[in-house]
C-alpha cells in the first residue's frame, strides 16, 4: 500500500475525530487536554502531508508551520496543565462538570 495523500488525510481525520471525541466525552481535565493535543497533531499532520504531496521542490512551509504548532502546543499544554493544577487546588477536583462557576 503506497503512501498517498488520501491515506494521510484519512489518518489525520481519524486522529482529529478521536481527539475531538476525547475532548468532548472525557470528564477529567487532563484527558481533555490530551484530546486537544491530538487535534493539534492531526492539524500538523495535514500541513506536512499537503506539503509533502504538493508540487516539488517547494520551500518547507508546511514543516515550518508544523514545528510552530508543536511549539505552541507545548506552551499551551504547560498553561493548560498549570490551569488544571490551580483548578484542582481550588475545587479539589479535576472533573470539569463540577467546575461550572461560569454558568449564567
Amino acid at each position, binding site marked *: 500500500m503506497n503512501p498517498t495523500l488520501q491515506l494521510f488525510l484519512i489518518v489525520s481525520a481519524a486522529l482529529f475525530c478521536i481527539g475531538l471525541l476525547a475532548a468532548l466525552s472525557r470528564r477529567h481535565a487532563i484527558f481533555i487536554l490530551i484530546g486537544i493535543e491530538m487535534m493539534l497533531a492531526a492539524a500538523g499532520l495535514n500541513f506536512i502531508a499537503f506539503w509533502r504531496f504538493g508540487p516539488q521542490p517547494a520551500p518547507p512551509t508546511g514543516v515550518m508551520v508544523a514545528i510552530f504548532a508543536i511549539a505552541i502546543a507545548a506552551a499551551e499544554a504547560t498553561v493548560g496543565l498549570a490551569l488544571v493544577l490551580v483548578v484542582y487546588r481550588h475545587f479539589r477536583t479535576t472533573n470539569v462538570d463540577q467546575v461550572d462557576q461560569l454558568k*449564567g
Partner: protein
Amino acid sequence: MSNSLLAHLWLIPAVPLAASLLILSLSNVRRGGAAVFAIAGQVIALILSLVAFWPTLQTPAYRVWQNFTWFTFGEQVLRIGFVLDPLAAAMLVMITLVSLCIFVFSIGYMATDQNFTRFFAYLSFFSAAMLGVVISNSLLLLFVCWELVGLASYLLIGFWIDKPSAAAAAKKAFITTRIGDLGFFLGILWVYDRSGTLLFYDGGNGALEHSGLLSLGASATFIALLIFCGAVGKSGQFPLHVWLPDAMEGPTPVSALIHAATMVAAGVFLVARVYPLFSLGAINGVTPSLTVVVWIGVITALISSLIALAQADIKRILAYSTVSQLGLMMVSLGVGGVAAGIMHLLAHGFFKALLFLGSGSVIHGCHEEQDIRKMGGLRRLMPATFLTYAIGMMALSGVPLFFAGAWTKEEILHATSLWSVSQVPHYLMLAGVVLTALYMTRQMIYLFFGPRRTAAEHAHESPAVMTLPLIVLALCTVGFSVLLTPAWPWLHDYLSGERAVFDSSRLIQPIFFLSLALVAAGIGLGLGVFLYRRAGAIDPLERALPGLFRFLANRMWFDELYDWTIIAFARATARASDLLDRYFLDGLVRTAGAIGGALGSLTKGFDERGINAGVDDATDVARGFGRVIARRHSGRVQTYLGAIAVGMLALLILYAWLT
C-alpha cells in the same frame, strides 16, 4: 557721566525699598538691625541724590530722562521712565535729608515700642515710594508710586492698630485721598486717550512737550483739573483736607514724614510737575484750571489757619498749619510762581519736620501728653528742644533774614501781587501770614513759657538721638535761607532754569514785599504775645469769643458736615441698595429659582413616567432575553466545546454547499 548716572537713578528709591524688605524679613527682636538697615538705606539714597544733584547744578535747565518699555499690549506700547531735572533733584535731596533726620529721631522716639522693626520697614517703604514719585517720568509710574505713598501712609497712620482711633484715622486718610485719586486716574486715562503717551518728556513726543500738549487741545483744562483732584486729596486741600489732622493718630515721626517730606509734598509736586498742562493756553499767565488752583489754595490756607488758632492738641495745630502752608503753595503755583511754591515746599519740608520732631520731643518729655494747655514753662526743662523749636516756629511764622520761611513767603506774596485776575488772594495771603504768626506764637507760649502746668512738672529733655536730628534740621532751616535771599536767588534761578547771579541791588528791590511780609508776621507775633502772654487753662480767644472759638475748635464742623451729607448719603445709598438687594434682587433670584424648581419637577415627572417607562420596558426585554441566553451557559467547558464543534461543522457544510 550723566548717562551712567541716569541709568542708576532708579537706585534712589530702590535702596530704601530693599532696606524695607530686608527689615520686614527680620524678626521682631532685631531692633538694632532694623534701625541700621533703614538708616543705611537712607544714607545711600541721600548720597545718590547728592550725586544726581551735582549735574543739575552744572547746566541751567538741566533735564535728562530715560524711558523704557514696560509692556506691549497689542499695538499699545506702554513706556515708563525716569527723569532728572532741578525740580526732581531738589526734591530728592530734601526728602532724603529730612527722612534721614526723622529716621534717626525715630530710634529714640520709638525705643520702647514693640513693633520697632515693623515701624522702620514702613518708614523706609514710605520714603522709597515718595522718591519714586519724584523721579517718575511717566504719569503711570508716578501714579503707581503715588498709590504706594498712600498705602504707606495708611500703614503708618494706623501703626498703633490696637487703638481704634488710629485705625479709623488710617481708613479716613486712605479713603479721602482715594476720592482725589479717582479724579487723578481719570485724568491719566484722558491724557492717554488724547496724546497716546503717558511720558512727561520723550524727546518732543511726551505729554508735557509741545506736540503732546497740542494733542490735548481744549480738554487740557479738564485734564488739569482732574489731576488737580489727586493733588487736592494728597496735599490736604479744601474740601478733602479733613484726613490730614486726623493723621496725627500715627506716631509723631510719621506725622513729620507725612507733613514735611513725603505725602503732602506729593500733591504740590504733582502740580509743579504737570505745570505745562495747567498753563496751556495761558493768557497773561491765567488759565481756568490755574484759577481754580488759586482759589482752592486760598480757601484752604485761610480756613486751616483759623482752625489752628483754636486747637489744643500740639500736633493738630501743626497739622492745620501744614494744611495752610500747602494752601499757600497751591496759591503760589496757581498765580504762576512755580519756583516760589516749590521753594516754599522745600523750606517747609525742613522747618515742618523740625517742628513735628520738636513736638515729638515735647510729647516724649511730657509722657505722651499732647494737650498744650497742660504744658508750659518747658524752656528750662527742655532747652535743646526749645531752641530748635523756636527756630522752626520763626521760620514758619516768617521772621525775616535768617529763617527760610520769610524769603519764600515774600516770594509768594510777590507772585500773588502780580496776579492779573484779582488782588484778593494777595490780601488774604497776607492775612494768612498774620494768622500763622499768631497761632505759632500761641503754641510757643503755651508750650515753653508761663507756669508749668500738670503735664510739664516731670518733663525731661529727650536723649541725644532725638535732639541731634532737631539740631541738624534747625541748621538746615537757617542755612537754607542763604539760598533764598533775593540778592542771590540761587534756588529760584535753579528751579526756573537760569544761572544764579549775585546782585546785591536785588536785595533792595523786593523791600516792599519783604516789609509787607515782615509787618504781617510782626503783627501776628505781637498780637500773639499780647493775647497769650497770660494765657491760662482757658484760651483768651475762648473767653472773648466763645462761639467762634467753639466753631473753630470743632474744625468748623467739617467732619460733622461730611457726616451729615456725604456719609449720610452714602449710608442711605447703602441702605437703599441693601433693601434693593434684599427684596428686589433677591426676589428676582428667588422667582428664578422657583421657576427652575417647577421646571425641574416637571421634567422629573416626565422622566419618571415617560422616559423611565420606556427605558424600563427596554431593559425588561433585554433582561428576559439575557435570561434565555444565560440558561444556555451551563458553565461546563465541554458543552461549549461541543457547540464550537457543531458550529465548525455547520460552517464546513455551508462552505461545501456553497462551492
